[in-house]
């Protein structure tokens, strides 16, 4: 190319070529730099993805291991002196029997079960190990005594017997065992007293304490008094309730709205307004939906606070625009030939839409629904405003009960004072949340590819 430019009289052609060559070198260098910047940007973005996942996994995986204390517990008849459990036969009516057995359980609860726990711990400790009662009881989690009491309530014939029981190690003990706390810190900064720490190390060595998979994360509800036993079950069920409500409400309403707007709506001011509305609703910050829930559902309609019902309704309103927009897109993509064929065969417009157009869009609607639900699943801010910040230690049986939700549980755990113990737990909860989301997204991708191939 360069040799073609020969019209200028004041420079020889070789000078010109050299000039253009130099310019080209500079331009090609710029090209390389620009391309490099692009690659760097991608590397940064992907690096963040990798870093985030690696970080959460590195922090979370240790929390899936729990420290169990194997105890041989003796149900000492001298400590448990409340008499035999009431039998149904001794009472005239069910009511009297219930009252008596409740009284018996209340008497049991008043006993000092800690002495039984302590005795079994001392049995496992080496002969003559010097440790006081408070220190040795800092090793098992505080719910150990309830666990043993409940065993006895279920089976009163255990009185006087010795059985093997696994209880959880306390959060502080678990920190010490896993090295979540710096072992070189002075006594003043350690949560456990020196003899307790020493005894824990002995227990680990002689097998009284061993590590196992932390099923408690999946089978227990949240707990403050016994942090080592805190689990996600309540939050998980709360989230399930909300997702159920979102699916049951958002999908029919969203699909119906999309059908109306795309297929039936006359071009009028009203439908224009609805359309602008939906586009804006999709971009309204989620916290504003929380304010709506707090003011309308809780303050005006007096629905119960921190119930999955209210959370589900708020998330439904938030998910609706997504589903409407996706469904409209899918309806728009259906080929006119299909519509005209249906109409040509004498179908009414409603029949055409419901019998012919809608079934074709099914894969897209399904995918949009799953993605919308996955998005709603991770939403936290609106739930905080409708009172789901509350500590709830139960599994919600109905959508009207108080409940937590997975993302809210993460928020609550990250704020727990026992950072050493709850930071891994929070990361573990995040792993569970991410696993559910990845699963949902995977299902969406799989279904779409499968159904689209068939269509």
């Amino acid at each position, binding site marked *: 190319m360069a040799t073609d430019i020969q019209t200028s009289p004041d420079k020889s052609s070789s000078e010109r070529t050299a000039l253009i060559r130099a310019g080209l070198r500079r331009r090609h260098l710029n090209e390389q730099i620009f391309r490099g910047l692009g690659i760097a*940007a991608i590397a940064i973005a992907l690096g963040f993805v990798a870093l985030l996942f690696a970080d959460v996994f590195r922090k979370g995986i240790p929390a899936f291991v729990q420290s169990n204390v194997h105890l041989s517990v003796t149900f000492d008849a001298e400590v448990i002196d409340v008499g035999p459990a009431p039998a149904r036969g001794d009472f005239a009516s069910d009511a009297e029997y219930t009252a008596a057995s409740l009284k018996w359980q209340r008497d049991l609860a008043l006993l000092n079960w800690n002495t039984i726990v302590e005795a079994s711990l001392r049995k496992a400790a080496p002969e003559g190990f010097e440790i006081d009662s408070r220190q040795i009881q800092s090793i098992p989690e505080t719910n150990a005594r309830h666990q043993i009491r409940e065993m006895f309530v279920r089976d009163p014939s255990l009185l006087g017997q010795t059985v093997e029981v696994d209880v959880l190690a306390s959060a502080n003990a678990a920190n010490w065992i896993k090295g979540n706390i710096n072992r070189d810190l002075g006594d003043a900064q350690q949560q456990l007293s020196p003899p307790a720490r020493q005894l824990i190390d002995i227990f680990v060595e002689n097998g009284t304490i061993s590590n196992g998979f932390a099923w408690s994360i999946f089978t227990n509800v949240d707990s403050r008094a016994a942090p080592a036993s805190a689990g996600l079950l309540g939050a998980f069920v709360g989230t399930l309730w909300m997702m159920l409500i979102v699916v049951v409400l958002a999908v029919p309403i969203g699909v119906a709205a999309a059908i109306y707007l795309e297929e039936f709506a006359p071009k009028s001011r009203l439908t224009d307004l609805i359309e602008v509305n939906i586009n804006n609703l999709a971009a309204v910050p989620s916290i504003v939906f929380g304010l709506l829930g707090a003011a309308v559902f809780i303050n005006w309609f007096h629905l119960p606070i921190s119930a999955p019902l209210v959370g589900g309704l708020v998330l439904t309103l938030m998910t609706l625009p997504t589903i409407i927009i996706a469904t409209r897109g899918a309806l728009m993509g259906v080929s006119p030939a299909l519509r005209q064929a249906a109409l040509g065969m004498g179908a009414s417009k409603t029949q055409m839409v419901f019998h012919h157009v809608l079934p074709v869009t099914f894969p897209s609607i399904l995918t949009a629904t799953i993605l919308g639900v996955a998005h709603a699943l991770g939403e936290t801010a609106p739930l905080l*405003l409708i009172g789901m910040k509350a500590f709830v230690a139960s599994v919600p049986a109905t959508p009207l009960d108080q409940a937590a939700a997975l993302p809210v549980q993460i928020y609550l755990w990250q704020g727990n004072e026992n950072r050493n113990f709850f930071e891994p737990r929070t990361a573990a909860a995040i792993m569970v949340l991410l696993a559910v989301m990845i699963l949902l997204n995977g299902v969406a991708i799989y279904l779409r590819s499968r159904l689209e191939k068939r269509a």
Partner: protein
Amino acid sequence: MNALVVAGVLIVLLGISYQTGWSKSRNLVTADGVKVHSRPQYHGSFTAIWAMIPALVILLLWAWFGGGITHNYTVSQIPQDILVSLDQAGLNGALIRINALASGYGVAGETAPWEQAAGDAVRSFNFLTFAGTLILAVVAGGAGLFYARSQINARLRARNSVERVVNVLLLACSAVAILTTVGIVASLVTEALRFFTFINPIDFFFGTVWAPNNAGGDNHGSYGLLPLLSGTLMITAIAMIVAVPVGLLSAIYLSQYAPKSFRAVAKPLIEILAGIPTIVFGFFALVTVGPFLRDFGNAIGLQISATSALTAGIVMGIMIIPFVSSLSDDIMNQVPRTLRDGAYGLGATQSETIRNVLLPAALPGIVGAFLLAVSRAIGETMIVVLAAGNAPILRGSPFEPVSTITVSIVNQLTGDTDFTGPQSLVGFALGLTLFVVTLCLNIFALYIVRRFREQYE
């Protein structure tokens, strides 16, 4: 229990009415060459609609007014001399006891004879009204059923009626979107106006001190918006500084340079970032990015707080990268190929084409995309709740803790229903501010993007 009975009765009514219409339609005699207008399903649906609507209306009316009627009846069962001696709390207590007796659950302690009598009366009243409503609903439904059945003949345009009902239902569903907006605006405006009866709007919008007195009492504290606004804007600016170059450059590389196979892998991977819940980003900022920035600052002699505008801004920027990247990718794909081909034809390199032709042509659309990203950053909550440090003080350094509008909403509205003082009502004033700001940004951005698209269509 009652709900199950009602649902069961309704389902039975639905089934019977549909079946009635369907079978009558099947048995229609088509005389004189008149064909049946609608298929049996439509006659079935027609009958079912006629049966269900009266029944549902009656049940809904009772659900709406029944509670008040029962309440009044229960109060009327308390003897007059006792009623006058009760204050509001005492009355509520008495009502709870009477209802407990009426439900058969029983109450603790001695039962006064009048309590027992009232309980029995309320129990029979509850039963009678429930049974009465249900029977009324069934009778009304049955009447509708028989009317519809009598209407069925070969000429009845049942399909058209059914389709009209379907149409109304569809319209009602799309009205939910409008109702949501109306609900948002109504709740924000009414509660914010109540807030402004406590606090002068000028003190709110132009105040420089944010110090709500959450203890209650006559001293409400001060509610200046500016510290929160400055924190919000600072974090948004930092987020955009991170997200815009990275997002835009990766979009350019993916859409212009990358081979197809690389694009197919890298694009979904980057979009994973968009699907991660913001609480996860918040945790990441709090436990990893914040401490890292603090240590990094110490190493170069800078005082950086672990929770600061910088921490929250950087992580929010990471969150927004895929948003910026996919929107700009979209927009650059809309620029006509001829523009690019023209530039190549003049001997421009690829990067020169992108910088001098593609980007200027796509600029309006990209600006629109950035505004959408800004609006998202302003409304983002969980990252800033965890990582911004919650220090509502007006200051200019990004290395120190700040607070934002969204953080203050979360702090002031803890979910208690007690919307009586400015302490909680301020959440709605802040929410209104947030809603208006993001709405304006969104409308403006969507307008720009739409104009841009039309330009090349």
